[in-house]
């Protein structure tokens, strides 16, 4: 506890009686801090300070501030009122009024609060004076970052390989064996099944040409693709599931989903 003195002398600086106190009032962190500073001036263990003396010093300080027309914050005045009351109680020792704490207990409580503040303040000072990471103690100056490496992992199996090979070889054999004589035709049923799967995903007035299966949308196959898809569309239009529109003969034919139209009208 004796090393507290050093800390305190420093905080108080040139705090000689009354004069310095008034000047330094702004430097105090509230009335308890001021009381603690006054108590330290008694140069005794905080547990043994004279609370009566302390109260008188505090009240004298407040009086001196008043006489110099210095304004004191409200909490300093609240403390002054309490200390004045405590002082009167201490000076006239008698049984405490009903429901009130005895004066010596009030005094003891003040001592405890001062000790507690002093102790925690000391602890804070010790903490800050201790080792700080980055000030006295250092972690690795050049930490080595973790590198995330993407590793490509082929998951093709022997089965895949053999399937691919068989498929490839069978294709050539099949072409040779069947000699297909008939022209490739997209069946109307196929076109209709495909369109039905697309229902709900057809945009508002999509061009018919854009609805062709990719493998039936170019070259000679396009004709069959177009014809069968148009027929399938007519069937679906008859069933009331889609609508068709053509602005003039031979112009592009547009398709829309009836479901889509209802949605857009609602909006």
């Amino acid at each position: 506890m004796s090393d507290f003195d050093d800390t305190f002398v420093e905080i108080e600086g040139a705090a000689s009686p009354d004069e310095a106190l008034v000047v330094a009032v702004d430097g105090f962190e509230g009335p308890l801090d001021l009381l603690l500073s006054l108590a330290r001036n008694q140069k005794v263990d905080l547990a043994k300070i004279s609370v009566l003396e302390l109260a008188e010093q505090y009240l004298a300080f407040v009086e001196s501030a008043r006489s110099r027309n210095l304004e004191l914050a409200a909490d300093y005045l609240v403390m002054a009122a309490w200390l004045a009351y405590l002082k009167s109680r201490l000076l006239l020792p008698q049984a405490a009024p009903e429901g009130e704490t005895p004066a010596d207990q009030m005094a003891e409580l003040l001592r405890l609060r001062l000790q507690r503040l002093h102790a925690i303040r000391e602890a804070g000072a010790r903490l800050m004076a201790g080792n700080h990471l980055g000030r006295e103690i250092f972690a690795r100056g050049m930490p080595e970052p973790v590198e995330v490496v993407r590793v490509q992992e082929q998951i093709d199996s022997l089965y895949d390989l053999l399937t691919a090979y068989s498929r490839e070889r069978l294709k050539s054999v099949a072409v040779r064996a069947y000699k297909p004589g008939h022209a490739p035709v997209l069946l109307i049923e196929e076109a209709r099944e495909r369109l039905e799967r697309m229902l709900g995903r057809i945009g508002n007035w999509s061009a018919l040409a854009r609805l062709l299966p990719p493998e039936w949308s170019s070259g000679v196959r396009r004709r069959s693709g177009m014809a069968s898809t148009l027929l399938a569309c007519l069937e679906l239009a008859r069933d009331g599931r889609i609508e068709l529109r053509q602005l003039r003969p031979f112009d592009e034919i547009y398709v829309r989903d009836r479901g889509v139209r209802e949605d857009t009208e609602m909006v």
Partner: protein
Amino acid sequence: MNQVVRLADIMAKGEIEEHAGPEEVAPRLDAEHLRMLEAILFAASEPLDEAALGRLLPQGTSVAALLAELQEIYRARGVNLVKVAGKWQFRTAPDLSFLLRREKPEQRRLSRAAIETLAIVAYHQPVTRAQIEDIRGVALSKGTIDALMEVGWVKIRGRKRTVGRPVTYGTTEAFLVHFGLESVGDLPGADELKAAGFLDALPASGLDIPAPSENLAPDEDPLEESDPGEGEDNAV
């Protein structure tokens, strides 16, 4: 393309353990695991806990035993293996601070009020604003708590189950890491403060101040996700 040195390869080589005695059951494995642990901790920028280390080491490694051994190896060295906030980190030895000490100019000095408040939060946690004000005998400005939260040393940790359910403050993991503490129980002088009764509640003030603890106090609720928490600040 990615020529990765496989664990198995290294372990098969077992180049390191020249000093392995015959009585050691699995000396090759241990020495190699020790090297791995050393490398992981050396490379890391943050303290690592045992679970994280366990995930990086081969399965079945006794991380705790390895850490104890590594700590012993480095005990008297210029770099020590220390446990902070329940995690492990290599740090320069405290006695070499005279050699390494650097004051960072940007390291903002905390105000006296802030340091005092930090100490109260650290030693008394969980603690409410009212309790801080009671100990200091003065109103706590919002800026003081803000400064401590900004440094990252103090956080809102819950709400007290009393009237108004005030938020409670506590210290963060960053606080422990910064001051090199394993837990708040290791705060310097905590035992003395407690023994002197300074961490107890004062009778007349009706305060309930237990010893610092990171666990929820009996009358403390955890902060909920949706809980704004900060709201309390405006009330003062």
